[in-house]
């Protein structure tokens, strides 16, 4: 069974699927923010830290 949480950015519903993994990144459908699953049980979401794409620029 999926869990529904509020997006910490826009408060839209975000669905955590039963196959979700710890530290997985999912996108909020409402605001497109990248969210990290900080904990699975109970499910906790937070805005994902920015990760530089390391193209050496």
């Amino acid at each position: 069974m999926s869990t529904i949480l509020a997006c910490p950015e826009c408060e839209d519903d975000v669905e955590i699927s039963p196959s979700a993994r710890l530290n997985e990144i999912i996108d909020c459908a409402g605001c497109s923010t990248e969210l990290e699953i900080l904990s699975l049980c109970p499910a906790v979401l937070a805005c994902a830290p920015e990760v530089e794409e390391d193209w050496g620029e």
Partner: protein
Amino acid sequence: MTTGPLTVVKCGGNPSVDSAGICADVAGLVAAGQSVLVVHGGSGEITRLAGKLGIPQRTLVSPDNVATRYTDPATLEVVVLALAGGVKPKLVAELSRLGVPSVGLTGLDGGMLRARRKSVVRSVVDGKTILIRDNLSGRLDEVRPRLAETLLQSGFVPVVSPPAADEHGHPVNVDADRAAAALAAALGADRLVLLTGAPGVLTDPGDDTSVLDTYEVPTTGAPGRFARGGMALKLIAAREALAGGVASVRIADGRVPGPVSRALAGSGTAVT
């Protein structure tokens, strides 16, 4: 003292790259009055030693499909053992037997390579993007060239590898191709040769005849449609060397006899 052009040569890593041939080639350049700095990786030796020590090896695959070694603390210890204690002494001994006075170094020596540890990296696992926080790898952010300069001026061939030191002085793994590029730029090298287990940049990774004579790497972002896996990092390294003022950057075959002199004579792919 040598006053000839300075060439930075990066060799694998890939067990198929012929280190004896590379050393013989380096000896020829040095005998001709040129300066050479060698940078090496050692993925084969790292994997072999990790296996013997029973330390499982995992690969991180970035969302852009670049694969890198997952370097947890136990793996970092193996990386340093294999590079500084395995691959490097063999290269130094081989160069020495050929009459080339060489000096094995890691980025820790003389504070030569400084990196910022990547506190978070993304890896794709089973189609999901996961954040990894205990990866002891970093991104080079400073080269202190004085040690390498001192040695080159005295006629020694530095033989350099990861690790680098992070901001707290602790070892972190860094990409050896990009370390070679950063050293080439910091030392004002004339040429950078990145040897690999392929004839150069290929339009079709499965077809060795599809090698490009020249490849113009995009100035920003991902290094283009031909770039996959290790070649992507090589192209980023090449771009960094070019941006740092290195006039000639080539990606060439390390598996052939005389790989360095062949590359300098124009084989492989010139990255522009």
